[in-house]
């Protein structure tokens, strides 16, 4: 056992014993993560030529539910609507945050695209829309013209991040990553 006694004198074993007793015991309570970029809510504001307006919401907070709540859109036939879209983060209901301002600030990196079922609604640009550095409309504000017949369908709104093209007829044409893909049902009444 003499060899053990000799070894205890060596610095390495002192280092050892110090390290062995350096153990943390309790962890602090972790902070709740503040998720800044989350989009929970898509709001469409539709104003017709007479100035009558309606607001519809698509809302999904994954922390609370895995089902989205969606308001239907009810439109009159043969009418032009000015439609503006807003994206919000309402994961903390007491402190809703708007994401739309960030999108306007990074207009070159974003694009809104609408895809309708059927062909009862035709989409066109609005003079009050936000444009990017190359004058491409973002479709944050757009004009929807309804057809003459009663019908129903669905509109899908996409928010595309870093699109590879700023124009196109289908989602594929734009490339980029889908940040929002939310469906609203619509009805056109006579």
């Amino acid at each position, binding site marked *: 056992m003499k060899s053990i006694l000799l070894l205890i004198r060596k610095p390495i074993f002192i280092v050892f014993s110090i390290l062995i007793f350096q153990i943390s015991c309790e962890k602090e309570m972790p902070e709740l993560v503040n998720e800044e970029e989350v989009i929970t809510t898509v709001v469409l504001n539709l104003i017709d030529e007479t100035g009558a307006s309606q607001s519809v919401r698509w809302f*999904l907070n994954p922390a609370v539910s895995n089902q989205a709540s969606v308001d239907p859109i009810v439109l009159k036939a043969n009418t032009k609507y000015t439609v503006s879209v807003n994206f919000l983060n309402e994961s903390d209901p007491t402190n809703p945050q708007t994401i739309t301002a960030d999108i306007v600030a990074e207009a070159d990196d974003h694009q809104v695209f609408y895809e309708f079922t059927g062909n009862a609604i035709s989409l066109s640009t609005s003079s009050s829309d936000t444009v990017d550095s190359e004058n491409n409309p973002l479709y944050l504000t757009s004009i929807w013209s309804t057809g003459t017949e009663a019908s129903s369908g669905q509109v899908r709104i996409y928010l595309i991040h870093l699109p590879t093209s700023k124009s196109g007829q289908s989602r594929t044409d734009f490339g980029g990553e889908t940040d929002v893909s939310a469906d609203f049902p619509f009805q056109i009444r006579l």
Partner: protein
Amino acid sequence: MFFFIAQSLSGQQCGFTLSGKITDLHDGTPIVDALVMTNQEGKFAQSDEDGNYFIRNLCAGKITLQISHVACETQTKSIALNSHFYFNIDLEHHINSLDEIVVVDHRKKELSESVQQFQIEGADMERSSGESLATALERISGVSTLKTGNAIAKPIIHGMFGSRVGIVNNGIRLQDQEWGADHAPSLDINAFESIQLIKGAAALKYGGDTAGGTILLSPFSIPVKDTLYGRSLMNAATNGRGGNVATQLTRAYVSGFFMKFQGSYQQFGDFHAPDYELLNTGLKAANLSMRLGLHRFNSGWEIGFSRYQNTQGILRASHIGNLEDLLNALEAPVPLRTAPFSYAIGAPKQEGFHQNLYASGYFRLTTTTKINLDYSFQTNNRQEFDIRRSGLSDLPAIDMMLKTHSWNASIAWKEGMNWSFEAGLNAVLQDNFSDPATGVKRLIPDYLKYQAGSYFVSTYKPNNQLAVNAGIRLDVQLWDAQKYYNRSDWLDQGYDQDYAQSVVLDLSSQLLANIEKRFLTTAAHAGLLLISKEKEISNRFSYVHTQRAPNASELFSDGLHHSLATVEYGNLRLNKEISHKLIFDVGRDKNTFRWNIAPYFAYTTDFIFIAPQGLIQTVRGAFPVWKYEATDTRIFGGDTSIEWQFNKHFRLTNDTAYIHAQDLNSQTPLISIPPFNSKTQLVAVTPNQKWEWRLSHLWVAQQHRFPDDRFDFPLLVNGQIQTQQIDLSTPPKGYQLFSMDISIFLGKLHSKNFIVRMMGNNIFNTAYIDYLNRLRYYSFEKGRNFHLQLIFNY
């Protein structure tokens, strides 16, 4: 020089001669000046220049031999002598070194003798010097790699990866969040002399939870003499237009004291597939390590420090928003984002930073009893950067710091001539911290993990033809995790029923739960090695029992994978995974035609895997959900290797592997199992041994056994909602690749002072897709690559 001392003894049964040759276990070279002592008085001999020894005038009976050499571990053998006898002895020889590593190596050998071992060293280590650990291991039959893109790779052994494969760095398990499939081991292979692979879990010393196998990385052994030497190497490759430099310098003294410094730096730009550049696939890595120690026969110590840092770009086109984006990527003939070559690495990317500080010591109580103590402190920081809005791309989306303290204490001793034992204790304390500043829900929660283990292994080796070994291990693991759950997920999983008492904080949308879990695991292994009399055929048979507690990802994972467009959930209800594995191995290790066949069979209950659970609604549209589940599995397969030495100049080798893996509960194949593959190599050496050519062919078949996870998905096509079937599970077609390798040895032949090597991979620029690449939906694999390697020993 050869001499012997013999005295003649009177008696009828005396006068026999024992002779033979003593050779190096590793390369068969003769060992000079080894001392062979017998239990008969005055009967001993020393080996001559050819390794031969003669002991004359021995009397009949049981003779015990003790074979010792200054640079080898002493061996004892016993034989029954009743005639003249020719007896060859293999010694484990490490030139001029007496350091701890020899002894560790030797013990590993004993521990796992009944399971075939594979070693990558020397020229193959050099060839791999520009590669990752996983790529280097692909040289071994039965090893494949699981990739995420082109450079992030981890080894798959017998169809198993991640937590089922242990990586041991200098005697201590590497703790680097190995559970993540999209994360390569945090180390640089240039810091190691050899890589040893033990299939199955025979290395009980290092853990009892690695059903796939254990990879042992051994640092360079240090000679005991006054010397200063170094080695520098450089690799330059055309694909990626980059390479690495690595250098090391060693100062050793005859007193046993030494210092070693090693450093390397690697950089690549975008790699290219046959027809396009792979945007944002560049990488940078730097490694630095220092060792300082005193190695003597009776005692020794070593302290060391290493740091490894890397930045790894991830194919830009693989960062997508939802399943439709993935479908568009699948249908596109080229990645949706390509750009001219660049060295820039932007988001998405991974940054890793691993540090290891260790101290170890050993001393002998007697010449046959040795005590080892090790301590290591590892920190592993992993950051992942996603493409984010409002300048947040510079802020990591995942930022985890894993700190691990490990302590090992072991004692190894010998009883009599034939028995050797080792017993040990180890303890691990691990602390994970996920930084909330990321602004993204934590993928892995904050936790503390305590682990304690003990093991006992023994070997019985009565002669050179038989070895039996057995071992057991017991571990206890405690988890103390604090995790925020979405209220909806908590309710969906039914955790409000089973884990209600764990809730410590109840916010409106989230719950903070303090989850405590305890797992008790055991492991055992028993093996037999039989070598035929002519020492030509060896048979190994082993049974390995392992139990593995679920890892952090399997228990707690909670997040979205951008590149796979999936949401992944852990499962608190998982039990430990229990596996039984039989490995049989028969081969001929000598002669001009060497071969080896190794079939295996593994049955696992509560095998943890991730399975699709349907779709959930998100703001990005419907998303497939994957959740960790348990099932029973059966895996069997076989690895074969053949080496045919035609003559001094030509050699042909082949390595082939096949795996069949089945989920027994659902009666479907398991996912991500390597397809049948076969590697053939022709090696030619010039008469002066200064030139060496290698031509390799790799054939990887299509995997026809896969779980069919096709699902229906509503898509909006031309103004109509259509249900379309999405197929992300069908494996890609098989492929064949050709590689070439020319080595030129300059300088003195045996010292190989200067080596130039030219290598060409995928020389026909074949466009192929690898089933085991998690980003296979986005691009082809790397195209042709020419590679120049310079090695300078001084």
